[in-house]
């Protein structure tokens, strides 16, 4: 049985897979960032029922495997609503919610780290809650949260590889296809690994630069 060698098409396949992985990561991380920090603000202001509900839900998401969540959404939900979900939609939904859970706990810690005294000053001066978040809590919480967020981003980028099992043609799935065709697993998976590494390393470097910039402004905070 003969197998084909590598062709230029394989490069295109990997590049396409990488694009899907990066796109999925960027989209779900952004949504997770918004939802997670939103939930943290709700908790911070002790909104009665909603705060507890969100906390419980996100606690469940943080403490269960992403693969299980993915199966639950892709196989479980369609069985419940009698409506199939596309792999990309299920992947996007799961990763967004999972990211939100981790962002939530980072953001809660960041908000709690901002001194109560300043919050009281801002309230006594008549700032609304939205103004308080935007001008006092947000910027400082972000300074506290940036390092863990960069770490989370690098991790979530790699977690996207799980979506290959439900049929999303991401970088891992592209590698899988290539491997089946060429039967040269070492070369293929080394290449896929290097591409993930390059993406993660770039993300880390960008994140560190962002962190340095934030910290330069926050130097007087004594961080």
């Amino acid at each position, binding site marked *: 049985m003969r197998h084909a060698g590598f062709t230029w098409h394989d490069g295109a396949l990997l590049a396409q897979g990488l694009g899907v992985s990066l796109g999925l990561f960027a989209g779900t991380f952004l949504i997770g960032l918004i939802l997670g920090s939103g939930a943290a603000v709700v908790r911070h202001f002790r909104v009665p029922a909603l705060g507890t509900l969100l906390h419980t839900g996100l606690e469940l998401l943080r403490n269960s495997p992403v693969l299980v969540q993915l199966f639950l959404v892709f196989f479980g939900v369609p069985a419940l609503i009698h409506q199939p979900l596309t792999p990309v939609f299920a992947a996007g939904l799961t990763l967004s919610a999972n990211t939100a859970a981790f962002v939530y706990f980072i953001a809660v810690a960041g908000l709690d780290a901002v*001194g109560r*005294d*300043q919050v*009281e*000053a*801002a*309230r*006594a*001066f*008549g*700032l*609304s809650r939205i*103004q308080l978040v935007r*001008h*006092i809590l947000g*910027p*400082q919480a972000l*300074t506290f949260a940036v390092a863990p967020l960069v770490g989370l981003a690098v991790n979530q980028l790699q977690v996207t590889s799980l979506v290959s099992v439900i049929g999303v043609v991401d970088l891992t799935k592209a590698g899988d296809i290539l491997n089946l065709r060429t039967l040269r697993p070492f070369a293929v998976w080394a290449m896929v690994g290097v591409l993930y590494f390059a993406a993660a390393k770039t993300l880390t470097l960008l994140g560190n630069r962002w962190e340095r910039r934030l910290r330069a*402004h*926050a*130097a*007087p*905070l*004594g961080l």
Partner: protein
Amino acid sequence: MIAVEGVVKRFGAHTVLGGVSLTVAPGEVVTILGSSGSGKSTLIRCINGLETLDGGRVTVDGLDVADPRQLAQARRLSATVFQLFNLYPHMTVLRNITLAPELVLRRPKNEVEAQARALLASVGLAGKADSYPGQLSGGQRQRVGICRALAMNPRYLLLDEVTSALDPEMTAEVLAILARLATQGTTMLFVTHEVEFARRISTRIVFLDQGRLIVDLPTDQFFAADGGLAHPRIRQFLSKMAPSSTVAGAPVSEILA
């Protein structure tokens, strides 16, 4: 007018304010004296809405601070200077001062900035507009805290032990500014341990003891032997806090003797 009527505040089983009544009319400088834990700071916090009341009523120019909407209005009328300055550490000195006037009073940015710079110059901090609070000394920070309050053009200035965290030299810096404000007719409610200073600038002095207001007198009567000093609790307090304070030219310690 700030009107405090029978205010009760409890923290758990502990009653911090047990029915305190007090008024501050425009133009007055009212000092609250009392030992630590007597409820002085809590009283200020009940006026600016940082504590919820367990009883009684606080109004600022008729606005009830227990009502969220009226509280928002009331907070535009008074401004607080805090014991630990409570500046925003991530903002420049200038931004610390201009934030609330811009966001809350919706005044134009250039007008507020001009006022902020003038205020900073008036307290000897003209060169510090672009510094961060962390780069200033305690006395400088508190002067910024005063500018931040004054930039609100408040009808009432609430001062919560504003010199307690400062060394004597820095205390003098801050008190000099407050004395000037007092002579300019700024209405102030002043919680302090600086008895001598309070005596110089106050129109009235009230004395809080264990959450109860036991004396509310014009300043000269407060320090008169048949006025505030007739109270054993106040004599005791003054002999500890201001052993050198004078009554009619004679040190309080001599009168107390």
